[in-house]
């Protein structure tokens, strides 16, 4: 028994004629294997979108009425704006923002880890990676397709959210750079979703099991988001410096305060002044103006004692530069994670 008659063509000739299978073949494969998660994602974002749309129309209507008030400086009109701000403060402005902060993490954690961990956990990688498509191309195609879908869905959702939230920026009560809102508007939301997905894919490969990888993804993402919001973002561009009195609370993200007297720094603080400081310099209480807030009032007390309060701050006008900076490095990090995942798969985990 011999098949020597069917000897192959010389190795180099045959190898050269072997074109890789087209990438589009993976589109159906990826959809079929991940459609439950993708449909889940669509349902989650879709129902949230319906809510935002309905609620958003109400908010826009209420805000339109408030700002349409004639003789804008009249007491009645100021009251109308204040009424708008207080009515929609918690349930429409803060809670939804908090919930939506979890969306990139959830998308990433439910979509990313299964790509590799489910194959490794069930042993099906021995099927998938011995097919003609090839293991690293299979991995790259899946990760890129899913990353694209997740980021696109997130961006569409973020556009709706930006519209929804517009009155809360316009009413001057929220700095667009504020940590709890900055990454939900503009373009960063899509890239945060992308990086969550990339973390998920990488974790799935390292951990080999879906549920632990999912938990690890959530934890890693939360840690990253926290570090960026609290420590990193304020350093994207060199802060500006101004007298605290001249700052509008809504247009500046103040990153530090310090008081000077006679050209020398006397003390400094971040955030709000302590009760000690207030008691020392403002024994008769602080006038808190909506425009400049508590620190603005504190600056007034200080100036009565001959101090000048300075602030380093990021102006709200830096919203878009900050968006692009953050999106840029998130994209680079995601690409790096996906490349590392593909490289490790190519190097063989077996």
């Amino acid at each position: 028994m011999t098949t020597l008659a069917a000897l192959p063509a010389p190795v180099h000739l045959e190898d050269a004629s072997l074109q890789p299978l087209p990438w589009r073949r993976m589109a159906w494969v990826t959809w079929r294997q991940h459609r439950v998660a993708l449909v889940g994602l669509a349902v989650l974002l879709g129902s949230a979108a319906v809510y935002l749309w309905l609620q958003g129309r109400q908010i826009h209507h209420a805000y339109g009425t408030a700002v349409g008030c004639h003789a804008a400086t009249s007491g009645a009109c100021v009251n109308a704006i204040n009424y708008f701000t207080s009515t929609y403060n918690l349930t429409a402005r803060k809670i939804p923002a908090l919930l939506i902060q979890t969306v990139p993490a959830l998308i990433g954690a439910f979509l990313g880890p299964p790509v590799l961990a489910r194959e490794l956990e069930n042993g099906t990688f021995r099927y998938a990676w011995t097919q003609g498509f090839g293991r690293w191309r299979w991995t790259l195609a899946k990760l890129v397709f899913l990353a694209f879908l997740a980021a696109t869905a997130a961006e569409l959702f973020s556009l709706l959210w930006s519209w929804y939230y517009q009155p809360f920026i316009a009413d001057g009560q929220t700095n667009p750079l504020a940590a709890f809102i900055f990454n939900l508007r503009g373009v960063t939301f899509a890239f945060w979703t992308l990086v969550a997905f990339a973390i998920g894919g990488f974790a799935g490969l390292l951990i080999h099991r879906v549920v632990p990888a999912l938990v690890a993804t959530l934890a890693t993402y939360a840690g990253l988001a926290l570090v960026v919001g609290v420590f990193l973002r304020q350093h994207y561009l060199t802060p500006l410096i101004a007298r605290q009195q001249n700052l509008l609370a809504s247009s500046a993200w103040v990153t530090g305060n310090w008081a000077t007297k006679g050209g020398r720094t006397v003390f400094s603080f971040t955030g709000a002044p302590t009760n000690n400081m207030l008691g020392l310099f403002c024994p008769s209480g602080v006038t808190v103006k909506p425009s400049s807030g508590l620190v603005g009032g504190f600056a007034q007390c200080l100036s009565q004692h001959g101090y000048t309060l300075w602030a380093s701050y990021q102006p709200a006008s830096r919203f878009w530069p900050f968006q692009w900076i953050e999106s840029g490095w998130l994209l680079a990090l995601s690409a790096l994670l996906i490349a590392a995942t593909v490289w490790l798969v190519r190097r063989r985990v077996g």
Partner: protein
Amino acid sequence: MNVIEADGLVKRYGSTWALRECSLAIPAGHVTALVGPNGSGKTTLLSLAAGLAAPSAGAVTVLGGRTPGSPIALDGIAFVAQDTPLYKNLSVVDMLHLTSNLNRRFDKASAQARLTELGIPLKRKAGKLSGGQQAQLALTLALARRPRLLLLDEPMAMLDPLARHDFMATVMAAMADDGVSVVLSSHVLAELERVADYLVLLSQGRVQVAGEVEDLLARHRLLTGPAAEAERYSERLSVVHASRGGSQAHLLVRQNATDGPLPPGWESHPVGLEEFTLAYLREPDAAAPPGPGRGPDAELSEVTT
């Protein structure tokens, strides 16, 4: 062409040695049985040939010198792994469509016809099929790729005798129709006896015996005679394995041209593949002698101890 060729192949998982200095050459056009006790390295060898794992040292090539896992090797080799991994939540039709998307060639029509013939419902989820049906599905998917080499790792472990028979019938039909070479690892010696014409016996990560079945069997005999004389008689022979049953002794011996005539009371029988394999499995240190006419690969197949 050798469908699998290994030279000093070593695979370690941490401190565990799965293969030690394993060298062999499996020529094309055979159904090769890969046998050996648990942990002897069968699955590891197949994983390396399929390109799922990389050697720790040494080299393995497939399909006449190709690197396992390279595009052309993936294209020409179909691997059915142990426990026939399938996507349990995908229907049979989806598995067909999936496999056809992932491969250059896929004969969907014949695969569908084959599954229908076997009475496997196309709409059913793969996870809801019986063990035998899952194995048949995995095999059908593999064969529809029109591979040049089919690797089967313990394909019959979970099958009942009838399903085993059907499974091997499918393999043999493909062998006859397409000339696909087959390497299968299995514990089911009786089933192998019917189909295998090449044998590779692994022991502790090394090749103990390798060669064409017909050739190997022709060079061994089973001698039966009085137990009392067995020990004295054995000294003159090259005994692989000796066993006793009551007053009778059974000696599986290598046949040499210099062997004299049988002493009175002794009988000589031809050896079956199952007996042959069992004898060598029981004696991990015994090696089959290189026989005549084993081709240029004989040196590679020899055990160096």
